[in-house]
């Protein structure tokens, strides 16, 4: 069993994810990567904030990292393995989890099952599905899912159809579905958008806890108040290029970033 309290201590330091010269065009227009593509690294166990104006290519980058879209060029290396050609579900199995900017849910499943389905149950293989062994494992998954729902404030909604949830609740549900997978690298696309401030604080605590347990996080946010308080490293993307990177304090003071993105009121 993959016990939830079993802390994941980083086994080795150094880079977890290496992005080398990656680029993507849509209908001839460069959405990501300049002339020689986008390159950067994510260290194991780090908490990275990814910011940039609308249309900068943040979500596109997530889509390339998770294999939802193929990259036009470049390579992606995760835990030392070149995963550039791996399919989306294989990358998930390798340990890359993500949420979507527009929450995606499984509408025919209950709230609880929307979380449980995030895990890879042994009963998902055809041969074991016809047997009974998966049932034991299933009870553990349900317990974990309830625990996670509790953490994201959806405990009392567990048996409802997912269509009954509000926009902010759906966003939390997306996070919950990834938590049950215990990914090595978790990519969150605007997790606080439309989420009540109190729940945002709870989410910040939750993410900080995952970080302490060794999970590597990359969070896209327009809510800089939220992000700069919890992230330890910031990547700034504009027009598909990396404009700057560094700790939040450094980013806040970078004149290029300030003029390109943050605006004058953040300069102080």
């Amino acid at each position, binding site marked *: 069993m993959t016990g939830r309290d079993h802390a994941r201590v980083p086994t080795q330091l150094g880079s977890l994810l290496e992005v080398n010269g990656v680029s993507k065009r849509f209908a001839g227009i460069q959405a990501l990567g300049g002339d020689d593509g986008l390159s950067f690294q994510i260290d194991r166990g780090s908490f990275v904030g990814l910011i940039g104006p609308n249309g900068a290519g943040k979500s596109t980058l997530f889509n390339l990292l*998770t294999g*939802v879209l193929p990259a036009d060029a470049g390579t992606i290396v995760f835990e030392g393995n070149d995963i550039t050609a791996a399919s989306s579900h294989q990358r*998930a199995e390798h340990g890359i989890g993500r949420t979507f900017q527009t929450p995606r849910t499984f509408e025919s499943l209950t709230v609880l099952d929307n979380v449980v*389905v995030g895990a890879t149950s042994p009963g998902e293989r055809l041969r074991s599905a*016809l047997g009974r062994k*998966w049932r034991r494992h299933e009870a553990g998954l349900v317990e974990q899912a309830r625990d996670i729902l509790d953490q994201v404030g959806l405990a009392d909604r567990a048996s409802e159809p997912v269509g009954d949830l509000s926009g902010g609740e759906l966003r939390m549900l997306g996070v919950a579905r990834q938590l049950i997978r215990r990914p090595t690298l978790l990519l969150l696309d605007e997790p606080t958008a439309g989420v009540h401030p109190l729940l945002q604080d709870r989410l910040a605590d939750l993410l900080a806890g995952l970080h302490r347990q060794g999970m590597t996080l990359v969070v896209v946010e327009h809510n800089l108040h939220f992000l700069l308080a919890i992230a330890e490293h910031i990547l700034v993307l504009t027009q598909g290029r990396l404009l700057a990177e560094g700790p939040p304090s450094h980013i806040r003071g970078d004149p290029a970033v300030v003029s390109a993105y943050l605006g004058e009121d953040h300069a102080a």
Partner: protein
Amino acid sequence: MNWPQLLITVATIGSIFGVVTLALNLQYARGGMINFGIVAYFAVGAYTYAIITQPPPKGLDQYAFGLDWPWWAGFLLAGIAALGFAALTGWPTLRLRGEYLALTTFAFAEVFHSFLLNERRIGNGTVGLSNVHRPFGDWGPIEEKYVFAGAAALLLIVTLAAFRQLLASPYGRALDAIRDDEVAAQSSGKPSADMRRQVFLISAVPVGLAGAVYAMFTTLAQPSLFTAEVTFVVWIALVLGGERSVYGAMLGAFGLVFFEEVVRALPFETVRSAQIAASVEHIITGVLFIAVLRYQPFDRIQRKVRAST
């Protein structure tokens, strides 16, 4: 009207088509695949059974193959042949979605149908294979027709039990997730393309087996029995019964077969009135079909049931 005889026929044919409807339900309602060529897998089962069990050709026979093997070998191989045919047809088509998959599966079935019409050595052309081996005679005091109805019902029950077990497992849940949102399901590690192909393949097996039973029952494997109309009848049964539940799908199959058999059994004075009745039957089926699509009574019932629990 001879009710006992009619009910026995409905039980037999209804069970056979019920199996096909269940397979369609699995493919469509859970796998999100529209198969408009389901009749081809049914025909593959029937022909395989006939060829495996019939005696080698002699005299004026035009067909080239007859293995004269026992019925159970023919029955099992019918399922395997349908699986093989699904693998063959699924490989190029399953990358397609929605109406494109519907069109290609339909085209496949039509090609297969004209193959059967024109290829004498395999299925004896338009005449087809007659005198298909009927394995069950009377069992002591139980007449053959009851044995047959029982065998068909058994196939239906076993198919239903297997599908239910599958769909109630995490496998079924993953299928639902893939159908609801494939991208999100993949991001949760669900191999959507593989699972869809699996569903396509495994659901073809009972269809092939049902085809074998159908050939036993009619003692025929003939192109005219396996036209696109069979596909549409099964689809109508699925929609009438409510595609969301396996029981609805089965109920639709039995209901439709019952309706057809009753119309067929009505005593008519003239050939003309029988012809009119046959057309009216088609019209009524069509109107029912449209009404179900328009008012979706089964969805409403299901919602009510869910709300009350």
